[in-house]
């Protein structure tokens, strides 16, 4: 079992299902939410290490989510979006995300970032 606990916010059913299964298969503890409201309610009690959030959510966006989380922000956060302009990436960084992954991406790209999160947790 890996030490990292991941909170995944994504409203595309198939994507969230397979991402969760894959990460669990690799030993991560995964919690999921399909919208910002649910994420805001559940993240503070989840004590997750990493937040992986889609930027386009049905009731807001991933940038607002980070802002509203305030002190409950996990210490490592990864944004996912179909849009990857320099402006989008800048907004993600300004909101507090460590990385901005442009969809679609290969599973290996996410794993590389999770390894980075694991290393930063150890240090």
């Amino acid at each position, binding site marked *: 079992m890996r030490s990292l606990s991941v909170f995944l916010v994504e409203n*595309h059913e*198939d*994507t969230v*299902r*397979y*991402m969760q*299964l*894959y990460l669990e*298969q690799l030993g991560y503890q995964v919690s999921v939410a399909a919208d910002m409201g649910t994420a805001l309610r559940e993240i503070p009690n989840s004590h997750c290490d990493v937040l992986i959030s889609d930027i*386009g959510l049905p009731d807001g966006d991933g940038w607002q989510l980070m802002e509203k989380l305030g002190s409950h922000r996990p210490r490592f956060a990864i944004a996912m979006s*179909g*849009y*990857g*302009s*320099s402006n989008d990436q800048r907004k993600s960084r300004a909101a507090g995300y460590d990385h901005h992954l*442009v*969809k*679609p*991406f*290969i*599973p*290996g790209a996410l794993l590389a970032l999770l390894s980075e999160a694991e290393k930063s947790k150890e240090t």
Partner: protein
Amino acid sequence: MTKRADEVCRLLQKIGLPAVRIEPVSAEVIGANELFSSLANAEALLESRVSFVEGVLPRLAAADRTSWKAAFAKQRPVEVQVGFKSSDGRTLDFEMRSFAVYDQKRRAQSVLCVFISLTTPAFKRICNARLSEGRELERSRVRKELHRGVSQQLLGAAFGCKVLAGRVATLNEELGKEASNLAELVNGAVSELQSLVRSAQIQRERHK
């Protein structure tokens, strides 16, 4: 005349054509323009119509004359683009465009006629701007389709294949390899799409 041109420019800005510059035209043409504006209203006086037919129509190119006559005869809204000819038969170097606002009965409430010189850089700029606006709309549509459809589904498929490959490998080594190959194939498709999305993004940012 300058005052009139300024007024038209302001109206053009309101309807979203800020780049248009009105070329100075003769007072005679401005007069024809105003007459045409009044005629586009179904309530126009017969006197004005006669004045238009006798005073302006003879100076229009034959094809334009026919379309104008038909438009007025049938009292239908007029959306015309005409090339004027001078009294000595020369084709004048400007185009007349009409913008009308209609009421519920499709009667023109007001008409704005604009004279645009066909050879000015301003006119070319408008044409190019419209073309580029069309391209950008199309790019934006494709981008949205990619984001909402293909790219989201492919992302789910890439993770799904990895899950499948992991599970099958525990049951049967050979099938596990096949599933793993399938996952790599999907990863290849993801990479292809990524580079397409990236190059479209670069083009868009350069365009800005």
